[in-house]
């Protein structure tokens, strides 16, 4: 149901709403349990003056922080059955994701740095179509943002994003090599780390 970036579709899906936002990142509460876009996906929030974010953390948790899940499947045949025989679970748990802001729509153009204002709470969050991902990733000026230490597992986020974006470009190999080269410059002096990321995006 959610249209994963890069699978060649042109439509966008509304994923959820912003429940927390700053000029550097925003948190989206998904409409459906487990309906978050994959790590590294490009998402857009807001209609007009949209901010673009890259999913850097996805979590499913209890709506009520004081309640935590307990095992329920001892007598179930499969995991699906756990949910079928405990239908309330889909309402007690929710999926949310955090996206680092990597740019915003500035009139007709796209800026690939932080927006002047954070997204509004309850802004709708969409996943980006292949076309949008391609357009956005035409320049990789925003990559330094993804390298900021405030993001957990930055390297995985970067690698996932590049893989997704690569699939949106006609010549994904050329895209990935250029992206890799940009990374190599940004990660100068961190060869093992660079190598790790490259291995992950290697076609």
């Amino acid at each position, binding site marked *: 149901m959610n249209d994963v970036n890069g699978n060649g579709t042109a439509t966008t899906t509304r994923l959820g709403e912003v429940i927390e936002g700053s000029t550097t990142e925003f948190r989206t509460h998904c409409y459906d349990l487990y309906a978050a876009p994959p790590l590294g996906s490009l998402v857009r929030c807001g209609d007009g003056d949209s901010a673009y974010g890259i999913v850097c953390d996805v979590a499913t948790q209890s709506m009520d922080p004081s309640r935590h899940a307990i095992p329920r499947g001892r007598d179930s045949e499969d995991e699906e059955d756990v949910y079928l025989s405990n239908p309330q679970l889909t309402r007690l748990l929710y999926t949310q994701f955090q996206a680092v802001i990597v740019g915003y729509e500035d009139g007709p153009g796209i800026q690939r740095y932080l927006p002047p204002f954070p997204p509004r709470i309850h802004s709708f969050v969409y996943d980006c179509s292949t076309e949008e991902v391609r357009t956005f990733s035409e320049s990789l000026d925003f990559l330094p943002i993804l390298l900021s230490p405030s993001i957990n597992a930055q390297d995985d986020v970067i690698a996932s994003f590049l893989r997704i974006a690569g699939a949106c470009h006609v010549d994904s190999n050329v895209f990935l*090599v250029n992206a*890799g080269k940009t990374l*190599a410059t940004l990660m100068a002096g961190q060869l093992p780390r660079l190598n790790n990321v*490259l*291995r992950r995006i290697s076609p």
Partner: protein
Amino acid sequence: MNFFPDPTEDQQDKRNAMGGKGWHPEDVTGDAVRKPLGMVVAGSLTEGMEVRLDGATSIEKIKVGTFVNIQGRDLQFFGVLTDVSLNSTDPSLRLTPPDVSNPFIFDVISGTTAYGTITVEPMLTLSNDPIEAMDGALPSKTIPPHFSKVATASENDIQKIFGSEDDSHFYIGTPLDMDTKLCLNIEEFVKRSNGVFGKSGTGKTFLTRLLLIGILQNGTASNLVFDMHGEYGWKGTSEGSREVKGLKQLFSSKVAVFSLDDESSRRRGLTPDYVVRIGYDEIEPEDIQVLRESLSLSDVAADASYSLKRKFGKGWLRKFLAYPGGEEFGELARELNVNDRALSTLKNRLERLQRFDFIDESGGHNSVNQILQYLNRGMHVVLEFGRYGNHLEAYMLVANLVTRRIYDRYTRLKEEAMGDPSQEPRPLVITIEEAHKFLSPSLADQTIFGNIARELRKYNVTLLVVDQRPSGIDDEVMSQLGTKIACLLDNDKDTDAVLTGVSGSRKLRSVLSRLESKQQALVFGHAVPMPVVIRTRDYGTAESYKELGFKDEAELAIQVEQDIEDLFGPGS
């Protein structure tokens, strides 16, 4: 990332004004585009510019000797790529190399974490200001600033610097990896003595042939070629014993072939314009001096020839060779005050000359005069040695003798002209192979060739020395050579000899020692504004002859008809 105002804005305006199509930065250099290499990151005038290669540039495609353009703020620099090296931004690269077995990672790392640098020796500058640029390129007295863009020079750059093909600019070859014609200023060329160097088989003869044609076509000078191996006048050979045309075949009306060996010439299908004969009486002690080495004569023995000349006068050699042996010979030695043994060695060795059929007893041969007459008529003379080409002493003897006589004549003519250029003899370029035999340090100050090389420019005679062992040539002579064209050389001594006295020689060395083993050469000196590596123009194909202005018989026939038609109207 354009820090600098674009120097070509004017050009752009012009194009636009002319209603030209959209302007692209690459367009500015003409049809051929400068291929970007990288940007300047460090450097000095003495060490050359360090240029970091763009990721996109494959280091394996880089060649030393490449002609390079550097776009400075106010100046464009032109230089030669002299070194290539590998670098990395990460010292840990050596210890923990990345996964380069993965082709993707290899692609990414190369040019970024691991990158190439090249060193460029800036040689010339050209102002970006169109008015100042009219002064032409000047030797570099400064270097381009940081981050200047570096690219391979374009066709337009080549033409701007080396001139385009015309009467005075002879197309000699193409720069590395380019199809652009690179030209030699042939008028500058003939003003001085020049050298073509390179180990055996590198293309000296082919190059020389082209130079001779250049001189011929330009017409300011005449050629006299001592064609040791019969390669210039009539049918040279190319590798695989394929025949290539000689000068006479291409420009029969302008070239005369003289032969020492009528028989062999005829065998090769040539009727020589003149068969050269030398009389004993024409041989002078200086000629013997030159042969010292090839005849293995001691200094004493060689010097004895002067005493003999003094004693016997004009027919000294003939008389000496006929001189009886025994007691009388000892007498002669004592009279001349030379060692008995030395004198008899001299006699023995000189007797070898008797094997050469072109030498005879009769005096009054006219060979040298004939040559001079041809030269005076504006002809170019190739002297073929035929089978004597294998005898160094024959070659040296004749070359020396002829040149000496011509020297005499030219000095006289020049003095008679008394500064009136119209009366001066036509400049003459004398081509000799195995030049180091004539110009070795021990001979250079004694032989006529040494004289010419050092000073005879003022008598309108210059040398074109062709040699595979330049280290054997006297330093002073080498330094007098105006333009040097060096193919790949065998050893360091030769390389050093060729490059002495050239600025940036240390860096050019690496260029020179990495030339391909055939048909590539480093050209530097007066006839080119800056050192440049060329791939020598092809010679030997029908097409090459055509480009050089040769028309084959069928074509000639058509040409004749056309001329007739032009003269008398169609159908006549």
